[in-house]
Protein backbone atom coordinates (compact mmCIF):
# COMPACT_ATOMS: atom_id res chain seq x y z
CA UNK A 1 0.00 0.00 0.00
CA UNK A 2 1.63 3.28 -1.04
CA UNK A 3 1.42 6.71 0.57
CA UNK A 4 -1.28 8.05 -1.74
CA UNK A 5 -3.46 5.05 -0.98
CA UNK A 6 -3.08 5.65 2.74
CA UNK A 7 -3.91 9.33 2.28
CA UNK A 8 -7.14 8.36 0.52
CA UNK A 9 -8.32 6.92 3.83
CA UNK A 10 -8.08 10.43 5.31
CA UNK A 11 -11.74 10.94 4.39
CA UNK A 12 -12.81 7.92 6.44
CA UNK A 13 -10.64 9.17 9.32
CA UNK A 14 -12.17 12.66 9.10
CA UNK A 15 -15.70 11.24 9.32
CA UNK A 16 -14.84 8.98 12.24
CA UNK A 17 -12.93 11.61 14.23
CA UNK A 18 -15.23 14.50 13.32
CA UNK A 19 -18.38 12.69 14.38
CA UNK A 20 -16.70 11.26 17.49
CA UNK A 21 -15.77 14.83 18.48
CA UNK A 22 -19.40 15.85 17.83
CA UNK A 23 -18.43 18.49 15.28
CA UNK A 24 -21.13 19.79 12.92
CA UNK A 25 -22.11 16.62 11.04
CA UNK A 26 -22.93 18.19 7.67
CA UNK A 27 -19.60 20.05 7.59
CA UNK A 28 -17.60 16.95 8.60
CA UNK A 29 -19.14 14.88 5.82
CA UNK A 30 -18.55 17.44 3.07
CA UNK A 31 -14.98 18.20 4.21
CA UNK A 32 -14.28 14.46 4.16
CA UNK A 33 -15.64 14.27 0.61
CA UNK A 34 -13.52 17.21 -0.61
CA UNK A 35 -10.32 15.97 1.08
CA UNK A 36 -10.78 12.43 -0.24
CA UNK A 37 -11.25 13.70 -3.78
CA UNK A 38 -8.26 16.06 -3.60
CA UNK A 39 -5.79 13.51 -2.21
CA UNK A 40 -6.96 11.07 -4.88
CA UNK A 41 -5.85 13.71 -7.40
CA UNK A 42 -9.32 14.58 -8.68
CA UNK A 43 -9.83 18.16 -9.93
CA UNK A 44 -12.34 20.48 -8.25
CA UNK A 45 -14.30 21.07 -11.48
CA UNK A 46 -14.79 19.15 -14.73
CA UNK A 47 -12.78 20.31 -17.74
CA UNK A 48 -15.62 21.97 -19.64
CA UNK A 49 -16.99 25.37 -20.67
CA UNK A 50 -15.92 28.34 -18.63
CA UNK A 51 -13.82 26.26 -16.21
CA UNK A 52 -11.34 25.24 -18.95
CA UNK A 53 -9.81 28.70 -18.76
CA UNK A 54 -9.13 28.51 -15.02
CA UNK A 55 -5.71 27.26 -13.95
CA UNK A 56 -5.31 24.32 -11.52
CA UNK A 57 -9.05 23.74 -11.03
CA UNK A 58 -9.58 21.23 -13.83
CA UNK A 59 -7.88 18.28 -15.50
CA UNK A 60 -8.82 17.13 -18.98
CA UNK A 61 -10.92 14.00 -19.03
CA UNK A 62 -11.67 13.89 -15.29
CA UNK A 63 -14.96 14.69 -13.57
CA UNK A 64 -14.60 17.38 -10.90
CA UNK A 65 -15.33 16.77 -7.23
CA UNK A 66 -17.86 19.63 -7.13
CA UNK A 67 -19.61 18.22 -10.22
CA UNK A 68 -19.78 14.76 -8.65
CA UNK A 69 -21.05 16.25 -5.39
CA UNK A 70 -23.76 18.21 -7.23
CA UNK A 71 -24.88 15.25 -9.33
CA UNK A 72 -24.97 12.87 -6.35
CA UNK A 73 -26.84 15.39 -4.19
CA UNK A 74 -29.43 15.98 -6.94
CA UNK A 75 -29.78 12.23 -7.66
CA UNK A 76 -30.43 11.57 -3.98
CA UNK A 77 -33.14 14.17 -3.43
CA UNK A 78 -35.46 11.19 -2.95
CA UNK A 79 -33.98 10.73 0.54
CA UNK A 80 -35.32 14.10 1.65
CA UNK A 81 -38.77 13.77 0.04
CA UNK A 82 -40.34 13.26 3.46
CA UNK A 83 -40.34 17.07 3.84
CA UNK A 84 -43.51 17.09 1.74
CA UNK A 85 -45.30 15.11 4.46
CA UNK A 86 -44.40 17.57 7.24
CA UNK A 87 -47.19 20.17 6.77
CA UNK A 88 -49.95 17.56 7.14
CA UNK A 89 -48.28 15.82 10.08
CA UNK A 90 -47.57 19.16 11.77
CA UNK A 91 -51.16 20.37 11.39
CA UNK A 92 -52.49 17.01 12.58
CA UNK A 93 -50.23 17.27 15.63
CA UNK A 94 -51.59 20.71 16.35
CA UNK A 95 -55.06 19.21 16.29
CA UNK A 96 -54.35 16.46 18.77
CA UNK A 97 -52.59 13.69 16.79
CA UNK A 98 -50.25 12.84 19.66
CA UNK A 99 -52.94 13.28 22.31
CA UNK A 100 -55.14 10.85 20.42
CA UNK A 101 -52.25 8.38 20.07
CA UNK A 102 -51.65 8.75 23.82
CA UNK A 103 -55.34 7.99 24.42
CA UNK A 104 -54.89 4.75 22.49
CA UNK A 105 -51.86 3.81 24.62
CA UNK A 106 -53.72 4.55 27.86
CA UNK A 107 -56.34 1.99 26.87
CA UNK A 108 -53.71 -0.76 27.07
CA UNK A 109 -54.38 -2.97 30.07
CA UNK A 110 -51.14 -4.88 30.32
CA UNK A 111 -50.96 -7.01 33.41
CA UNK A 112 -47.20 -6.75 33.91
CA UNK A 113 -44.35 -4.34 33.25
CA UNK A 114 -42.79 -6.65 30.67
CA UNK A 115 -45.99 -7.09 28.69
CA UNK A 116 -46.54 -3.33 28.61
CA UNK A 117 -43.06 -2.87 27.09
CA UNK A 118 -43.83 -5.45 24.40
CA UNK A 119 -47.13 -3.80 23.52
CA UNK A 120 -45.41 -0.41 23.35
CA UNK A 121 -42.65 -1.82 21.14
CA UNK A 122 -45.29 -3.23 18.76
CA UNK A 123 -47.02 0.16 18.76
CA UNK A 124 -43.72 1.73 17.62
CA UNK A 125 -43.24 -0.95 14.94
CA UNK A 126 -46.68 0.08 13.70
CA UNK A 127 -45.42 3.66 13.39
CA UNK A 128 -42.58 2.39 11.22
CA UNK A 129 -45.03 0.46 9.06
CA UNK A 130 -47.09 3.62 8.53
CA UNK A 131 -44.01 5.59 7.57
CA UNK A 132 -44.21 7.92 10.58
CA UNK A 133 -40.87 8.99 11.98
CA UNK A 134 -40.60 10.35 15.48
CA UNK A 135 -38.45 10.18 18.58
CA UNK A 136 -40.76 8.58 21.11
CA UNK A 137 -38.61 9.23 24.20
CA UNK A 138 -39.98 12.71 24.92
CA UNK A 139 -43.44 12.21 23.43
CA UNK A 140 -44.45 8.75 24.73
CA UNK A 141 -41.86 7.14 27.00
CA UNK A 142 -41.39 9.88 29.58
CA UNK A 143 -44.96 11.13 29.92
CA UNK A 144 -46.85 7.83 29.45
CA UNK A 145 -44.96 4.56 29.34
CA UNK A 146 -42.87 5.21 32.45
CA UNK A 147 -45.76 6.10 34.79
CA UNK A 148 -47.88 3.29 33.32
CA UNK A 149 -45.02 0.81 33.93
CA UNK A 150 -44.67 1.93 37.53
CA UNK A 151 -48.42 1.52 37.88
CA UNK A 152 -48.23 -2.02 36.50
CA UNK A 153 -45.33 -2.82 38.84
CA UNK A 154 -47.34 -1.63 41.85
CA UNK A 155 -50.31 -3.75 40.89
CA UNK A 156 -48.11 -6.83 40.60
CA UNK A 157 -46.30 -5.82 43.79
CA UNK A 158 -42.80 -5.58 42.40
CA UNK A 159 -42.28 -1.89 43.04
CA UNK A 160 -42.66 -0.52 46.55
CA UNK A 161 -45.33 2.15 46.50
CA UNK A 162 -43.22 4.74 48.32
CA UNK A 163 -40.26 4.53 45.96
CA UNK A 164 -42.45 4.50 42.92
CA UNK A 165 -44.54 7.51 43.77
CA UNK A 166 -41.49 9.36 45.01
CA UNK A 167 -39.66 8.90 41.74
CA UNK A 168 -42.57 10.31 39.87
CA UNK A 169 -43.34 13.27 42.06
CA UNK A 170 -39.76 14.43 42.50
CA UNK A 171 -39.17 14.40 38.77
CA UNK A 172 -39.54 17.93 37.49
CA UNK A 173 -41.40 16.45 34.59
CA UNK A 174 -40.97 18.19 31.25
CA UNK A 175 -43.86 20.56 30.86
CA UNK A 176 -43.84 20.06 27.11
CA UNK A 177 -44.28 16.38 27.69
CA UNK A 178 -46.17 15.91 24.47
CA UNK A 179 -43.43 17.68 22.60
CA UNK A 180 -42.91 16.91 18.96
CA UNK A 181 -40.28 14.84 17.26
CA UNK A 182 -36.81 16.29 17.41
CA UNK A 183 -37.43 18.41 20.47
CA UNK A 184 -35.23 16.31 22.74
CA UNK A 185 -32.80 19.04 23.73
CA UNK A 186 -35.62 21.30 24.85
CA UNK A 187 -37.18 18.54 26.88
CA UNK A 188 -33.86 17.84 28.56
CA UNK A 189 -33.38 21.48 29.38
CA UNK A 190 -36.70 21.54 31.19
CA UNK A 191 -36.20 18.09 32.68
CA UNK A 192 -33.30 17.34 34.90
CA UNK A 193 -30.12 15.35 35.13
CA UNK A 194 -29.61 12.23 37.17
CA UNK A 195 -30.23 12.67 40.86
CA UNK A 196 -29.28 10.44 43.71
CA UNK A 197 -32.09 8.44 45.15
CA UNK A 198 -31.30 7.69 48.80
CA UNK A 199 -34.13 5.16 49.04
CA UNK A 200 -32.71 3.03 46.26
CA UNK A 201 -30.74 -0.08 46.92
CA UNK A 202 -27.51 -1.06 45.18
CA UNK A 203 -27.13 -0.06 41.56
CA UNK A 204 -28.76 -2.43 39.11
CA UNK A 205 -31.08 -4.03 41.62
CA UNK A 206 -33.35 -1.04 42.03
CA UNK A 207 -36.62 -2.07 40.32
CA UNK A 208 -37.45 1.50 39.28
CA UNK A 209 -34.09 1.92 37.53
CA UNK A 210 -34.61 -1.38 35.70
CA UNK A 211 -38.06 -0.28 34.61
CA UNK A 212 -36.74 3.04 33.29
CA UNK A 213 -34.06 1.28 31.25
CA UNK A 214 -36.66 -1.13 29.87
CA UNK A 215 -38.92 1.79 28.84
CA UNK A 216 -36.16 3.43 26.81
CA UNK A 217 -35.09 0.09 25.33
CA UNK A 218 -38.62 -0.79 24.17
CA UNK A 219 -38.75 2.53 22.34
CA UNK A 220 -35.38 1.96 20.65
CA UNK A 221 -36.10 -1.67 19.70
CA UNK A 222 -39.44 -0.75 18.11
CA UNK A 223 -38.07 2.34 16.40
CA UNK A 224 -34.79 0.97 15.00
CA UNK A 225 -36.06 -2.30 13.57
CA UNK A 226 -39.62 -1.23 12.74
CA UNK A 227 -38.67 1.84 10.72
CA UNK A 228 -37.50 -0.18 7.73
CA UNK A 229 -40.97 -1.64 7.20
CA UNK A 230 -42.03 1.21 4.92
CA UNK A 231 -40.38 2.27 1.65
CA UNK A 232 -40.86 5.94 2.54
CA UNK A 233 -38.52 5.70 5.55
CA UNK A 234 -35.07 7.28 5.53
CA UNK A 235 -33.16 4.02 6.04
CA UNK A 236 -34.73 2.32 3.01
CA UNK A 237 -34.23 5.40 0.83
CA UNK A 238 -30.60 5.70 1.99
CA UNK A 239 -29.84 2.09 1.09
CA UNK A 240 -31.65 2.46 -2.25
CA UNK A 241 -29.69 5.62 -3.12
CA UNK A 242 -26.27 4.41 -1.94
CA UNK A 243 -26.60 1.12 -3.82
CA UNK A 244 -27.77 3.00 -6.92
CA UNK A 245 -24.64 5.17 -6.65
CA UNK A 246 -22.53 1.99 -6.57
CA UNK A 247 -24.18 0.77 -9.75
CA UNK A 248 -26.35 -1.84 -8.03
CA UNK A 249 -30.12 -1.50 -8.41
CA UNK A 250 -32.26 -2.73 -5.52
CA UNK A 251 -36.05 -2.62 -5.19
CA UNK A 252 -37.44 -0.63 -2.26
CA UNK A 253 -40.12 -3.30 -1.70
CA UNK A 254 -37.44 -6.01 -1.68
CA UNK A 255 -35.60 -4.07 1.02
CA UNK A 256 -38.81 -3.97 3.05
CA UNK A 257 -39.41 -7.69 2.45
CA UNK A 258 -36.00 -8.74 3.73
CA UNK A 259 -36.28 -6.61 6.85
CA UNK A 260 -39.26 -8.69 8.05
CA UNK A 261 -37.17 -11.56 9.54
CA UNK A 262 -35.09 -8.98 11.41
CA UNK A 263 -38.21 -7.31 12.83
CA UNK A 264 -39.50 -10.74 13.83
CA UNK A 265 -36.24 -11.55 15.61
CA UNK A 266 -36.25 -8.20 17.40
CA UNK A 267 -39.77 -8.85 18.71
CA UNK A 268 -39.00 -12.42 19.84
CA UNK A 269 -35.79 -11.33 21.59
CA UNK A 270 -37.64 -8.49 23.29
CA UNK A 271 -40.35 -10.87 24.50
CA UNK A 272 -37.62 -13.04 26.07
CA UNK A 273 -35.82 -10.10 27.66
CA UNK A 274 -38.97 -8.45 29.01
CA UNK A 275 -40.25 -11.78 30.42
CA UNK A 276 -36.98 -12.08 32.29
CA UNK A 277 -37.50 -8.55 33.54
CA UNK A 278 -40.92 -9.55 34.91
CA UNK A 279 -39.38 -12.56 36.66
CA UNK A 280 -36.53 -10.58 38.22
CA UNK A 281 -38.92 -7.83 39.32
CA UNK A 282 -41.04 -10.51 40.97
CA UNK A 283 -37.99 -11.91 42.79
CA UNK A 284 -36.98 -8.47 44.00
CA UNK A 285 -40.46 -8.02 45.44
CA UNK A 286 -40.24 -11.35 47.28
CA UNK A 287 -36.84 -10.49 48.76
CA UNK A 288 -38.27 -7.23 50.07
CA UNK A 289 -41.13 -9.04 51.80
Amino acid sequence: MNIQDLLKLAGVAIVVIGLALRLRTTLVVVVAALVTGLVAGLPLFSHEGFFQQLPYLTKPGQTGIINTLGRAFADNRLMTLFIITLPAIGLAERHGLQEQAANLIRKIHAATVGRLQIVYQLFRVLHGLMGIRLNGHPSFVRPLIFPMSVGAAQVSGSAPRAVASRSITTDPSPDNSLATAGSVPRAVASGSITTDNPLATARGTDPIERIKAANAAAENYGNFYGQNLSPVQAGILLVYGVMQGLGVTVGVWDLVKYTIPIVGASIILAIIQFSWLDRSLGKMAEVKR
Partner: protein
Amino acid sequence: MMTSIFSAVFSLDAVYVLTGVVLLIFALMTFADRGNPRRVGSGFFWFTLGIIFALGSVMPHWLTGLLVLFLVTLDGLGRVSRGSHQPDQSSQAGRAKALGNRIFIPVLAIPIVTFAFALIFRWLGMDANRGALVGLGFGGLTAMFACLILTRSDARSLMNEGRRLNEAMGAVNILPQLLASLGVIFTAAGVGALIAQGIQQIIPANNLFLLVLANCLGMALFTIVMGNSFAAFPVIATGVLVPLIIKPFGVDPAMAAIITLTAGSSGTLMTPMAANFNIVPAALLNMRDQYGVIKFQLPFALTIWSFHVVLLWLLIKIS
Protein backbone atom coordinates in the same frame (compact mmCIF):
# COMPACT_ATOMS: atom_id res chain seq x y z
CA MET B 1 -50.79 13.42 -25.71
CA MET B 2 -52.70 12.11 -22.69
CA THR B 3 -49.92 9.74 -21.77
CA SER B 4 -47.26 12.45 -21.99
CA ILE B 5 -49.29 14.73 -19.70
CA PHE B 6 -49.84 11.80 -17.35
CA SER B 7 -46.17 10.90 -17.24
CA ALA B 8 -45.16 14.56 -16.71
CA VAL B 9 -47.57 15.10 -13.83
CA PHE B 10 -46.95 11.75 -12.14
CA SER B 11 -43.17 11.88 -12.40
CA LEU B 12 -40.42 12.04 -9.84
CA ASP B 13 -39.46 15.48 -11.19
CA ALA B 14 -42.96 16.81 -10.52
CA VAL B 15 -42.68 15.59 -6.92
CA TYR B 16 -39.25 17.20 -6.56
CA VAL B 17 -40.63 20.52 -7.85
CA LEU B 18 -43.57 20.22 -5.43
CA THR B 19 -41.21 19.61 -2.50
CA GLY B 20 -39.05 22.50 -3.71
CA VAL B 21 -42.08 24.81 -3.65
CA VAL B 22 -42.93 23.71 -0.10
CA LEU B 23 -39.33 24.48 0.94
CA LEU B 24 -39.45 27.89 -0.77
CA ILE B 25 -42.64 28.72 1.16
CA PHE B 26 -40.93 27.63 4.42
CA ALA B 27 -37.98 29.88 3.47
CA LEU B 28 -40.16 32.94 2.82
CA MET B 29 -41.93 32.45 6.16
CA THR B 30 -38.53 32.11 7.87
CA PHE B 31 -37.26 35.33 6.28
CA ALA B 32 -40.30 37.09 7.76
CA ASP B 33 -40.00 35.41 11.17
CA ARG B 34 -38.75 38.06 13.60
CA GLY B 35 -38.71 35.48 16.38
CA ASN B 36 -35.81 33.65 14.72
CA PRO B 37 -32.46 35.07 15.83
CA ARG B 38 -30.85 33.80 12.61
CA ARG B 39 -33.70 34.32 10.20
CA VAL B 40 -31.54 35.44 7.26
CA GLY B 41 -29.13 32.49 7.44
CA SER B 42 -31.94 30.01 8.10
CA GLY B 43 -34.05 31.54 5.33
CA PHE B 44 -31.21 31.24 2.81
CA PHE B 45 -30.59 27.64 3.87
CA TRP B 46 -34.14 26.47 3.15
CA PHE B 47 -34.39 28.73 0.08
CA THR B 48 -31.24 27.18 -1.42
CA LEU B 49 -32.43 23.67 -0.64
CA GLY B 50 -35.77 24.54 -2.28
CA ILE B 51 -33.94 25.73 -5.43
CA ILE B 52 -31.91 22.51 -5.55
CA PHE B 53 -35.10 20.46 -5.18
CA ALA B 54 -37.07 22.35 -7.81
CA LEU B 55 -34.30 22.79 -10.39
CA GLY B 56 -31.85 20.00 -9.52
CA SER B 57 -32.70 18.05 -12.67
CA VAL B 58 -31.98 20.96 -15.04
CA MET B 59 -29.22 22.91 -13.25
CA PRO B 60 -25.60 22.13 -14.23
CA HIS B 61 -24.04 19.82 -11.65
CA TRP B 62 -21.23 22.23 -10.78
CA LEU B 63 -23.83 24.82 -9.73
CA THR B 64 -25.67 22.29 -7.57
CA GLY B 65 -22.31 21.32 -6.05
CA LEU B 66 -21.50 24.93 -5.19
CA LEU B 67 -24.98 25.42 -3.68
CA VAL B 68 -24.39 22.33 -1.51
CA LEU B 69 -21.12 23.89 -0.28
CA PHE B 70 -23.11 27.07 0.48
CA LEU B 71 -25.69 25.07 2.50
CA VAL B 72 -23.02 23.33 4.50
CA THR B 73 -21.10 26.57 5.12
CA LEU B 74 -24.26 28.22 6.48
CA ASP B 75 -24.81 25.30 8.85
CA GLY B 76 -21.09 25.08 9.71
CA LEU B 77 -21.10 28.74 10.76
CA GLY B 78 -24.13 28.12 12.95
CA ARG B 79 -26.39 30.37 10.86
CA VAL B 80 -29.31 27.92 10.77
CA SER B 81 -31.70 27.93 13.72
CA ARG B 82 -35.29 27.48 14.73
CA GLY B 83 -37.88 30.18 14.51
CA SER B 84 -40.83 31.07 16.66
CA HIS B 85 -44.06 29.35 15.95
CA GLN B 86 -47.10 30.91 17.53
CA PRO B 87 -50.02 28.73 16.64
CA ASP B 88 -53.56 29.82 17.26
CA GLN B 89 -54.07 28.29 20.69
CA SER B 90 -57.84 28.12 20.18
CA SER B 91 -59.01 25.16 22.22
CA GLN B 92 -56.62 22.46 21.04
CA ALA B 93 -57.85 19.91 23.53
CA GLY B 94 -61.46 20.60 22.60
CA ARG B 95 -60.70 20.07 18.94
CA ALA B 96 -58.77 16.91 19.70
CA LYS B 97 -61.87 15.53 21.36
CA ALA B 98 -64.13 16.69 18.56
CA LEU B 99 -62.02 15.04 15.86
CA GLY B 100 -61.26 11.86 17.80
CA ASN B 101 -59.68 9.12 15.78
CA ARG B 102 -60.47 10.93 12.54
CA ILE B 103 -57.22 12.87 13.11
CA PHE B 104 -55.40 9.73 11.95
CA ILE B 105 -57.03 9.91 8.47
CA PRO B 106 -54.61 12.44 6.91
CA VAL B 107 -51.58 10.72 8.43
CA LEU B 108 -52.72 7.31 7.18
CA ALA B 109 -53.36 8.78 3.72
CA ILE B 110 -49.59 9.04 3.20
CA PRO B 111 -48.72 5.30 3.29
CA ILE B 112 -51.98 4.35 1.56
CA VAL B 113 -51.38 6.68 -1.42
CA THR B 114 -47.72 5.60 -1.56
CA PHE B 115 -48.72 1.97 -1.75
CA ALA B 116 -51.48 2.66 -4.28
CA PHE B 117 -49.06 4.47 -6.60
CA ALA B 118 -46.56 1.62 -6.40
CA LEU B 119 -49.31 -0.86 -7.34
CA ILE B 120 -50.59 1.32 -10.20
CA PHE B 121 -47.08 1.82 -11.57
CA ARG B 122 -46.45 -1.90 -11.50
CA TRP B 123 -49.84 -2.56 -13.13
CA LEU B 124 -48.93 -0.11 -15.93
CA GLY B 125 -45.63 -1.95 -16.39
CA MET B 126 -43.57 0.91 -14.95
CA ASP B 127 -40.96 0.94 -12.17
CA ALA B 128 -42.68 0.22 -8.82
CA ASN B 129 -39.79 1.85 -6.92
CA ARG B 130 -40.40 5.08 -8.74
CA GLY B 131 -44.11 4.61 -8.09
CA ALA B 132 -43.51 4.48 -4.34
CA LEU B 133 -41.47 7.71 -4.43
CA VAL B 134 -43.98 9.55 -6.62
CA GLY B 135 -46.69 8.17 -4.34
CA LEU B 136 -44.91 9.56 -1.29
CA GLY B 137 -45.04 13.02 -2.87
CA PHE B 138 -48.70 12.80 -3.81
CA GLY B 139 -49.47 11.13 -0.48
CA GLY B 140 -48.05 14.20 1.25
CA LEU B 141 -50.19 16.43 -0.95
CA THR B 142 -53.33 14.35 -0.34
CA ALA B 143 -52.67 14.45 3.39
CA MET B 144 -52.36 18.24 3.28
CA PHE B 145 -55.78 18.61 1.64
CA ALA B 146 -57.36 16.02 3.93
CA CYS B 147 -55.95 17.85 6.95
CA LEU B 148 -57.14 21.24 5.74
CA ILE B 149 -60.68 19.98 5.18
CA LEU B 150 -60.80 18.01 8.43
CA THR B 151 -59.44 20.75 10.70
CA ARG B 152 -60.92 23.69 8.76
CA SER B 153 -57.55 25.43 8.96
CA ASP B 154 -56.05 27.78 6.40
CA ALA B 155 -53.06 27.14 4.17
CA ARG B 156 -50.95 29.53 6.20
CA SER B 157 -51.17 27.54 9.43
CA LEU B 158 -50.66 24.34 7.41
CA MET B 159 -47.33 25.63 6.11
CA ASN B 160 -46.39 27.11 9.47
CA GLU B 161 -46.83 23.71 11.14
CA GLY B 162 -44.75 22.08 8.42
CA ARG B 163 -42.08 24.68 8.96
CA ARG B 164 -42.16 24.01 12.71
CA LEU B 165 -41.38 20.31 12.23
CA ASN B 166 -38.83 21.01 9.51
CA GLU B 167 -36.91 23.52 11.62
CA ALA B 168 -37.09 21.24 14.66
CA MET B 169 -35.05 18.70 12.67
CA GLY B 170 -32.95 21.44 11.13
CA ALA B 171 -29.99 21.17 8.78
CA VAL B 172 -29.54 17.49 9.70
CA ASN B 173 -32.40 16.88 7.24
CA ILE B 174 -29.95 16.87 4.35
CA LEU B 175 -27.54 14.46 6.05
CA PRO B 176 -28.68 11.26 4.25
CA GLN B 177 -28.24 13.07 0.92
CA LEU B 178 -24.76 14.24 1.92
CA LEU B 179 -23.78 10.77 3.13
CA ALA B 180 -24.90 9.18 -0.13
CA SER B 181 -22.84 11.80 -2.00
CA LEU B 182 -19.85 10.96 0.21
CA GLY B 183 -20.26 7.33 -0.82
CA VAL B 184 -20.19 8.33 -4.50
CA ILE B 185 -17.01 10.38 -4.02
CA PHE B 186 -15.40 7.53 -2.04
CA THR B 187 -16.08 5.31 -5.04
CA ALA B 188 -14.72 7.87 -7.51
CA ALA B 189 -11.55 8.23 -5.42
CA GLY B 190 -11.12 4.47 -5.12
CA VAL B 191 -11.56 4.34 -1.33
CA GLY B 192 -13.93 1.38 -1.53
CA ALA B 193 -11.44 -0.60 -3.61
CA LEU B 194 -8.74 0.23 -1.08
CA ILE B 195 -10.72 -1.03 1.92
CA ALA B 196 -11.66 -4.13 -0.06
CA GLN B 197 -7.96 -4.76 -0.80
CA GLY B 198 -7.06 -4.39 2.86
CA ILE B 199 -9.70 -6.89 3.93
CA GLN B 200 -8.68 -9.33 1.21
CA GLN B 201 -5.17 -9.38 2.62
CA ILE B 202 -6.57 -10.72 5.89
CA ILE B 203 -9.52 -12.83 4.74
CA PRO B 204 -9.42 -15.31 1.83
CA ALA B 205 -11.82 -14.15 -0.88
CA ASN B 206 -13.64 -17.49 -0.93
CA ASN B 207 -14.39 -17.63 2.80
CA LEU B 208 -17.98 -16.42 2.77
CA PHE B 209 -18.59 -16.70 6.50
CA LEU B 210 -15.56 -14.60 7.47
CA LEU B 211 -16.47 -11.98 4.85
CA VAL B 212 -20.03 -11.78 6.20
CA LEU B 213 -18.58 -11.51 9.71
CA ALA B 214 -16.20 -8.71 8.65
CA ASN B 215 -19.07 -6.94 6.91
CA CYS B 216 -21.39 -6.99 9.94
CA LEU B 217 -18.58 -6.31 12.41
CA GLY B 218 -17.30 -3.36 10.38
CA MET B 219 -20.83 -1.96 10.18
CA ALA B 220 -21.38 -2.27 13.93
CA LEU B 221 -17.94 -0.86 14.85
CA PHE B 222 -18.23 2.14 12.52
CA THR B 223 -21.69 2.81 13.93
CA ILE B 224 -20.44 2.58 17.50
CA VAL B 225 -17.68 5.10 16.82
CA MET B 226 -19.79 7.51 14.74
CA GLY B 227 -23.08 6.99 16.55
CA ASN B 228 -24.90 6.79 13.23
CA SER B 229 -25.56 3.70 11.13
CA PHE B 230 -26.51 5.89 8.16
CA ALA B 231 -22.97 7.30 8.11
CA ALA B 232 -21.40 3.86 8.38
CA PHE B 233 -23.42 2.30 5.56
CA PRO B 234 -21.84 4.08 2.54
CA VAL B 235 -18.33 3.21 3.80
CA ILE B 236 -19.09 -0.48 4.40
CA ALA B 237 -21.19 -0.80 1.23
CA THR B 238 -18.42 0.61 -1.01
CA GLY B 239 -15.55 -1.15 0.78
CA VAL B 240 -16.91 -4.55 1.76
CA LEU B 241 -20.49 -5.41 0.90
CA VAL B 242 -20.59 -4.72 -2.85
CA PRO B 243 -17.01 -5.61 -3.94
CA LEU B 244 -16.41 -8.61 -1.67
CA ILE B 245 -19.85 -10.17 -1.11
CA ILE B 246 -22.55 -9.07 -3.56
CA LYS B 247 -20.49 -9.09 -6.78
CA PRO B 248 -18.25 -12.17 -6.35
CA PHE B 249 -20.97 -14.38 -4.84
CA GLY B 250 -23.87 -13.09 -6.96
CA VAL B 251 -25.91 -12.28 -3.86
CA ASP B 252 -29.38 -10.67 -3.91
CA PRO B 253 -28.30 -7.05 -3.25
CA ALA B 254 -31.55 -5.97 -1.52
CA MET B 255 -31.31 -8.79 1.01
CA ALA B 256 -27.64 -8.23 1.80
CA ALA B 257 -27.93 -4.42 1.93
CA ILE B 258 -30.82 -4.15 4.38
CA ILE B 259 -29.39 -6.81 6.71
CA THR B 260 -26.10 -4.90 6.70
CA LEU B 261 -27.89 -1.68 7.60
CA THR B 262 -29.65 -3.17 10.63
CA ALA B 263 -26.44 -4.89 11.73
CA GLY B 264 -25.44 -1.25 12.22
CA SER B 265 -28.60 -0.59 14.26
CA SER B 266 -27.35 -3.20 16.73
CA GLY B 267 -24.28 -0.98 17.10
CA THR B 268 -26.51 2.04 17.72
CA LEU B 269 -28.02 0.24 20.73
CA MET B 270 -24.56 -0.11 22.28
CA THR B 271 -23.05 3.34 21.87
CA PRO B 272 -23.20 6.53 23.95
CA MET B 273 -22.40 8.33 20.68
CA ALA B 274 -26.06 7.84 19.72
CA ALA B 275 -26.92 10.23 22.53
CA ASN B 276 -30.45 10.99 21.32
CA PHE B 277 -31.46 7.36 21.78
CA ASN B 278 -29.32 6.19 24.70
CA ILE B 279 -28.11 9.08 26.86
CA VAL B 280 -30.83 11.71 26.55
CA PRO B 281 -33.58 9.22 27.55
CA ALA B 282 -31.59 8.29 30.67
CA ALA B 283 -31.59 11.98 31.56
CA LEU B 284 -35.27 12.39 30.66
CA LEU B 285 -36.12 9.51 33.02
CA ASN B 286 -33.83 10.79 35.80
CA MET B 287 -31.78 7.61 35.81
CA ARG B 288 -28.89 7.45 38.26
CA ASP B 289 -26.66 5.63 35.79
CA GLN B 290 -26.41 7.56 32.52
CA TYR B 291 -25.35 4.33 30.79
CA GLY B 292 -28.28 2.40 32.31
CA VAL B 293 -30.16 2.22 29.00
CA ILE B 294 -27.09 0.94 27.12
CA LYS B 295 -26.40 -1.69 29.78
CA PHE B 296 -29.97 -2.95 29.54
CA GLN B 297 -29.76 -3.07 25.73
CA LEU B 298 -26.35 -4.75 25.56
CA PRO B 299 -27.39 -8.45 25.73
CA PHE B 300 -30.21 -7.79 23.25
CA ALA B 301 -27.86 -5.94 20.87
CA LEU B 302 -25.15 -8.63 20.92
CA THR B 303 -27.71 -11.40 20.34
CA ILE B 304 -29.47 -9.69 17.44
CA TRP B 305 -26.13 -8.72 15.89
CA SER B 306 -25.08 -12.41 15.90
CA PHE B 307 -28.45 -13.23 14.37
CA HIS B 308 -27.65 -10.80 11.52
CA VAL B 309 -24.36 -12.58 10.80
CA VAL B 310 -25.96 -16.03 10.77
CA LEU B 311 -29.03 -14.92 8.80
CA LEU B 312 -27.00 -13.17 6.08
CA TRP B 313 -24.65 -16.15 5.79
CA LEU B 314 -27.52 -18.68 5.68
CA LEU B 315 -29.57 -16.71 3.14
CA ILE B 316 -26.54 -16.52 0.82
CA LYS B 317 -25.77 -20.22 1.34
CA ILE B 318 -29.23 -21.50 0.50
CA SER B 319 -29.78 -19.22 -2.49
